[in-house]
């Protein structure tokens, strides 16, 4: 963006405006990241001032730790199973909400209510669901009274149930946001495309596949990648729902919970914990940026390059 001659000599002022961000990012963003990488090659523990560099020994330890692989699998599993219904529901609801044929009323109200769980404190939501599904909690009361369960059940002793619970809470907290974003994407598609498709005799299914989905691609990629990055860092819900160690049987021990367990272990092994952080960081970044590069419409990317 250029403002013509009068602005040329003012352009160095740009540095002044971005300076605070750059300085604070270097001190509170980049350096801690570098420090984490540095620590991941050391045997630093919380209680001791001395440490030594141990090369890639920590990485060997972590990769050979069955708990780590389990934590990684859990994270991926929980994320995938919460994301699929999120995006599915978002596509379906957005089609309904934007349909000119249906002309649904109260769309704004529904969206507002669907988004509500997202802005509530995850710690409180986790504690809430822990109480709702407690042995003496309302879920048991209702299910026993309705005859669905013969007797009250220890929900959080069951691995599959507990995993499903985390998946459900993650879905519950995020589907509203996904609906809003997908719907905004659909609304921004020009009506002309549909009009000319209609003239060509296309039915609504064809229009959805041939116009809506391709045009939604950038928005879908954005949703996928941001959800993935957030999902890989999932901590509050699985940490607070049970004992903070992924009980029962480590079924909801996510990668970040595992990292915290290393950090809070009796010795406070922050070298190893950093290694876990580095592994999550590298894998997530590579996957997220990879998906972003590959899936984003190449034409769009080229157009963007030209524009800026």
């Amino acid at each position, binding site marked *: 963006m250029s403002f013509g001659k009068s602005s040329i000599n003012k352009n160095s002022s740009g540095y002044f*405006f971005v300076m605070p*961000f750059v300085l604070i990012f270097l001190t509170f963003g980049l350096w801690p990241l570098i420090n984490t990488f540095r620590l991941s090659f050391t045997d630093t523990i919380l209680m001791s001032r001395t440490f030594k560099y141990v090369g890639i020994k920590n990485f060997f330890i972590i990769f050979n730790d069955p708990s780590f692989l389990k934590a990684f699998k859990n994270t991926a599993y929980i994320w995938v199973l919460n994301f699929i219904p999120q995006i599915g529901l978002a596509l379906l609801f957005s089609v309904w909400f934007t349909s000119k044929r249906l002309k649904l009323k109260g769309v704004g109200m529904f969206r507002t209510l669907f988004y509500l769980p997202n802005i509530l404190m995850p710690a409180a939501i986790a504690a809430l669901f822990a109480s709702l599904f407690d042995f003496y909690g*309302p879920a048991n*009361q209702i299910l026993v009274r309705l005859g669905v369960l013969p007797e009250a059940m220890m929900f959080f002793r069951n691995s599959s149930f507990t995993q499903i619970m985390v998946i459900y809470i993650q879905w519950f907290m995020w589907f509203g946001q996904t609906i809003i974003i997908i719907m905004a994407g659909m609304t921004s598609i020009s009506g002309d495309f549909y009009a000319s498709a209609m003239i060509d005799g296309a039915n609504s299914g064809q229009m959805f596949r041939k116009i809506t989905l391709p045009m939604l691609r950038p928005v879908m990629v954005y949703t996928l990648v941001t959800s993935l990055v957030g999902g890989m860092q999932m901590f509050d819900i699985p940490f607070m729902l049970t004992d903070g160690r992924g009980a029962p049987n480590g079924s909801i021990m996510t990668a970040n919970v595992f990292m915290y367990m290393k950090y809070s272990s009796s010795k406070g092994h922050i070298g190893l914990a950093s290694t876990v952080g580095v592994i999550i960081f590298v894998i997530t970044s590579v996957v997220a940026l990879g998906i972003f590069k590959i899936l984003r419409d190449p034409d769009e990317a080229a157009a963007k390059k030209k524009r800026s």
Partner: protein
Amino acid sequence: MKYKTNTNIQKTIIYIILIIITIICIIPIWLLLVNSTRSTPAIQSGVSLIPSNNLIVNYKILSSRGLNIWRAVGNSFYISIFSTLFGVYFSVMTAYGLKVYTFKGRKFLNNFILILVLVPMQTSIIGFYQYMSKLHLLNSYIPLIIPAAASAATVFFALQYLDAIIIKDLIHAARIDGCSEFGIFQKVMLPIAAPGMFTLAIFGFVGSWNNFFTPFILISKMEKYTLPMLVQTLRGDAYKTELGAIYLGLAMSIFPILVVYSIFAKSIVSGIAMGAVKE
């Protein structure tokens, strides 16, 4: 005619589905609020959707077992307000610098910020912790407030927003009037950007209010606890049998956000899509 009936049947089914999903969203939150007014024996004996009259008793129990919820509320407010002010002001300033000036490294910084949005910075928490401990900033709110000024996501949103509202002629005119570059930003840009900054501020506030992980790692002194940390403590032994008090604690921690949301829902919902969709 038949077409219309079909549409009506379809609409009825859709409304039923939408109402079911709405109930799914609201019931847990409603139960939480209602249970905070019920006694523990009542909660244990059955579900109710109607508030009861045990709120004050629950509050007495909640505040009598060593947890100071008002202090945690105050701490959370303090951190959330200052990190929001910091975050929004400097993010808009950064975005403004990137949009209005062409300087060396501008493109790099711009792309770098976009990449930062897609990178899980939270995983560097251990290095952050160790560094803060060296600086003697554990149990201080500085590491919870200052880094907000370098939030890539906020800058990203601010960039999209400024795209729509920067008026070149206005900046030109202010320059001709002899306004300094910083003066233009302060006196011309900020007032125009105020509505968008307000939306960013709501998101900043909510994010900071709900943040559990960072304070949980950095803060260990009880009197410095934030609300999410207090919620975690509530699940401990001292309150194990006091369900009414636990629900009240949870209700108090989400209540301010419920109020904010009921007032500003519109700008919040429209703000979400701001980063994802270029209009």
